[in-house]
Every structure is written in C-alpha cells, then in structure tokens.
C-alpha cells in the first residue's frame, strides 16, 4: 500500500459521517419519501430542492416559520424610532408652521409609515439569513457527487447521522426502498 493511498484511507476513517443523501426526480416521490421517513420516526432529515415544494413541510413535520414574529418586533421598533425621531426634532428645533403645535403628529405619519416598513424589511432580510444560518460557505451536503442538481432538477433527501434512529445500513435500505438514487454517505 503506497503512502498516499494510506493517507487517504486514514482521512476517511477519521472523518465523521454527516448523513445519507439520495435524490429523486419528481417532487411527488420526494414528498412520499419524507412522509415515510417521518412515520419511521426520523427527526433530523432535510430535503434539498431547486424550488420550494409546497406541502413538504407537512410531510416532514416541520413547525411553522418564526419569521412573522421577528418582522413584527422590528416593525414595532421602526414605528417607535420614527415617533422618537420626529418628537425629538420638533422639540429640539421647533418650526412653527401655520401656528400648528410643534409636534403635529399627523404630518409625521408618512415618516412613521416609512420607517416601520424599512425596519420590518431589514428584520425580514437579516432575520431570514440568521434563522437559516446563512451565509455558510460550506456544507457537508455539498459533497454529494450530484449535488449541483439540487439547484437544478433533482430532489434530495438527507438523513443526518445525529438522528437517534440513524443506522447507515438500515437507513440506506429504507431510502433504497423509497426509490432514492445514488445514495451516498457524506462526511462532515
């Protein structure tokens, strides 16, 4: 056994498995597979699809997204900052126009609206990447030889090794039964 080969083998031994990955060619098959995995008691599995397959979250048993709460709190912050800003400005540098009170809040409604929207949008944008743990420039699932198809036309399913029910051979067999193609164990 030459040196290089041995080195490779050692590396393979030391690398921890991330999970089993396989893919389907239609969203229907993927959904069916996710349902079966959920029913078999798997908790840590994910689907990777080129577009959002509607209804898949039910098949996978995922809880609803927390995004609305993040956006709501950011929007409220935006509204409060607009009120604080316009109040402070009209007290700090009073401009008397048509004898109206300094803090004539009706005139500030456009400002309050715009800042509410602006803060909500920032909350939605950054909150989404935060929840999704992105940007992430490397992920084990990208090691699958056919991974590029996940953003093109293949519907992947990944069962993670950290799942208590994970068993390399049994899980592989289950995926095979479900009709997954090119089932590969990817390492971390």
């Amino acid at each position, binding site marked *: 056994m030459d040196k290089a080969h041995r080195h490779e083998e050692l590396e393979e031994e030391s690398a921890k498995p991330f999970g089993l990955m396989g893919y389907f*060619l*239609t*969203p*229907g*098959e*993927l*959904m*069916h597979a996710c349902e079966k995995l959920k029913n078999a008691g798997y908790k840590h599995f*994910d689907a*990777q*699809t*080129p*577009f*959002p*397959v*509607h209804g*898949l*979250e039910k098949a*996978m048993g*995922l809880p609803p*997204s*927390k*995004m*609305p709460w993040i*956006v709501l709190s950011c929007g409220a912050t935006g509204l409060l900052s607009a009120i604080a*800003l316009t109040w402070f*400005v*009209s007290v700090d*540098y009073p*401009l008397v*126009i048509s004898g109206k009170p300094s803090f*004539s809040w009706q*005139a500030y409604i*456009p*400002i309050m*609206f*715009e*800042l509410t*929207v*602006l803060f*909500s*949008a920032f909350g*939605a*944008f950054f*909150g*989404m*990447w935060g929840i*999704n743990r*992105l*940007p*992430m*420039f490397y*992920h084990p699932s990208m090691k699958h030889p056919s*991974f*590029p198809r*996940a*953003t*093109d*036309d293949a519907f992947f399913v990944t069962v993670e090794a950290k799942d208590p029910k994970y068993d390399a051979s049994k899980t592989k067999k289950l995926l095979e039964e479900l*009709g997954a193609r090119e089932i590969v164990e990817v390492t971390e």
Partner: protein
Amino acid sequence: MTTAALQEDTPGKRAPLVLGHRDFNAVTETVAGIVEKKTTPTWLVLLGVAMSVLLILLGSLGKLVADGLGIWGLNNTVFWAWDITGFVFWIGIGHAGTLISAILFLFRQKWRTSINRAAEAMTIFAVMSAAIYPVFHVGRVWFAYWLFPIPNQMSMWPNFKSPLLWDVFAISTYATVSILFWYVGLVPDLATLRDRAKTKVRSIVLGIFSLGWRGSHKNWLNYEKTYLILAGLSTPLVLSVHTIVSFDFAVSIMPGWHTTIFPPYFVAGAIFSGFAMVVSLMVLARKAYGLEGLITIKHLENMNKIILLTGTMVGYAYAIEYFIAWYGGNEYERFAFINRAFGPYKWAYWTMWSCNVFSPQLFWFKRIRTSIPAMFVISIFVNIGMWFERFVIIVTSLHRDFIPSSWTYFRPSLFDISTFLGSFGLFFTLFLLFLRFLPAVAISEVKGVMPQADPHAGHGGHDDHGHDAHDDHHEEASAKADESNEDEGDEGEEASNDSEKDEEESRG
C-alpha cells in the same frame, strides 16, 4: 396560424405558463444559458450606445455642479420643470416592478413569475435614474446630506412637516426595500449559477453572492415566509411612495396641484407607465434571448390588460379634474384647467391625451393586445404620454400663476434635455449589464409554477406508482426538451399543442 391565436384561452382551462416541452433542467439551461454564453456583438454595441448616453449625463451633471442651476431653463415663475418631471417619470416607471413582484404575488397570480425578475431590476434602475434629480436639483450637491436628519454643527433639523422631506424617507425606503426584495429573490438562482460554474473565479464570486444557499427545505420554509412578508410590506409601500410624490404637489396651494385626487391618480399613472416600460423591455429581451417559451404572449397580454385598465383610470382622472374645476367654483382652478387645454401648452396637453387615454383603448381588441408590434408601439406611446402628463401638471400650472405680470413660457435649455436624455443612458447601461450577468427570469419561481412541480401531479396518490415508469417518462421528456432547446424558435403549433396535452395528462 399565428402563435398568438394558438395560445388563446380555452374556456375553463388556463393557458400554460411555460411553453414547449420544458422540464426543470430545460428551464435552467434556457435562463442560465443566457448568462453563461459568450457576449454577443449586438449586446456590446448596445452597451456602447447606452454608455455613450451615460457620458452625456455625466457631462451635464458635471456642468451643473460647476456652474449651478442657471444652466437649466428655469425662471422665477417656472421654478420646477424638467427636473421634477424627470424625477416623477422615473419613479413612476419603477412602480410596475414592485407591483408585479408584490401585489401579483399576494394575489397568487402565477403568470408573474417569468417577468418579475426583470421588472424588479427595472424598478431599481428607474429609482436610481430618478434619484439623480432630487440630489442634483439642490444645486450644491455636496450639501445634499442636509436632507437627512443628521445632527450638525448648526443644530438644525430638516422640516419634517414638508412633503419634500417625506419624499426623502419614502424614496430611500423604497429603493432599499426594492433592492432587498430583489436580492432575496436572486439568491436561489445565484446558487444555481454557482453550481453550474465552470471556472474557479466564477464559482467563488457566485459562491459569495449566493450565501451558501443549498435549497434546504428548512431554509425554503423561512425563505418563502420572508418573501411573502416582503411582498406584504412592499404593497402598501409602493402605493405610499407615489402618494407622497403627489403630496409634493397636492399639499401646495397652486391651482391645478391642490387636489385630493392626486394620490390615487398618481398611483394609477405610475402603474400605467411602469407596465408600459416592462412591455417595451420584455418584447425586446424575449426576442433577443429566445425567451418566448417563458415570457409568453399570454404574459404580455395580461400586462396589456393592466395598461388598458390603468390607462382608463388615468383618463377618468383627467376628466374628473375638469368636473371639479367647474363644480368647485374656484376661478383660479377653472382658469388653470382651461389654460391647460387651450393655452400655450395645448400641444403638450393633447399629446398627453392621445398617448395616454386614446392609444391604450386599442387594447380592447384581442388582435392588438396580442400583436407584438402593436403593443410595442403603444407601450412607447404610453411612456411618451406619461412624461407629458407630468410636464403638463408641473409646467402649465406654474407658467401662468396668480399674477399675470409674471406669466412666462418655459423653454428647456440644452442641459435640461441632455440631463433627461442622459438618465436613459444610466437606466439602459444598468439594464444591459443585468441582462448579461444575472438570470433575467426567476429560475426557481418558474419551476415552481410548472405542472410537474405539483407533488400530487402525474399520478393519483403517490403510493401506487412504480418509480421506474416515472423515470422513463422523465428521461424521455428531458430528451425532448433538449431537442426543442437547440432550436429556440421552435414553439409553433406542434410544441404548444403538445405542452397542453402534457398538462392534461399530468392533471388526469
């Protein structure tokens, strides 16, 4: 038989959104192919032209900064003319992008998917072209930051009771949210391009911009919710922006400006001109890049229907202004409107009527609505007409004000014209760069509205189906798609019939 006739609605059945045997991979190939192909000489020539016009803009703005606002044809009476006209014109153009991507998304209008990306890009570039005017018409550009509420050495704050400051907030929020919305939509498609990248540099650059997107469904779940929320935020935002732009006029006491119809009337006009610009651009882009199968006649027809609707609304607003001028009994108001139609600017006024109210009425006829040359010409007319609308509102109200001794006739100077012309250079330079380097059609969204994307399609209930049979079908479809892909123009009678058949099969 023309293609248009073939795609007619069959009663009770929707026209297909994607034509010509496409499977998921074929959509990727078509759209990503545009970006990955070599630069065409036509594109280079067009970019050269656009950049030359951009240079005219830079020259005009340089002259403005050096010499001051005196280089424009403004005078004491008409103190606001082509600058605010150009600003409102460009902001209005921008609105269609947000409308297509946000309002049509909320209404679950699936036909928006193949045009929303380009329309959103158009929005951003139009807002950038618009932003030139408020920034430069302050004259001393280096003081433009006075518009923002930033603590300064004079401990002065801007006037928050002024519509011009509301504008600062509205436009900057609109620009920011549009860019965020656009970028969120781009990320999955950038990931597609990254995974197809052939060179190291390309894959690193796209890798950075796609943020490591890997299509995880847990991510999609939050992503879709975010997209929905952003659409929900953009919808009132887009309406508020043009409402606030109209406040710039309506809050004043100038006859012809001081009307409550302005906010809805401006919003309708903005949608009108924006859709006209989308039609003008899409007609050219689909031809240039062989996107006829994705941006179908049906898409264009739907947009033309919106142009017809909003054009009629704008016509109604023109008419009701006369009614109010008469019924309101204010003689200055009455004079302003008679002066518009029969005064020295009647040529501009009647150009506005013919382009905005009369020309889109031709869209009542299906033949015209679905004819590419006709819709292109009408959309250009609408763009011209909407520029004139803003010009008429602004200049005709100002040029004969309350004191007849100060009445004047506004003539644009060379620099008024060159600045406006130049703003087209900026817009088209950016748009051409967008078409060349970014996916012009939202790949992942188009895939999502294809009949194959329905997880329950193809077979009744997913339990009782052999996988092999399905795979064969897939391979066959993909081979067919490759064939039709090679010959891009191939979407005649056969292709369209077959795709309908396919759809029927997949539903049955």
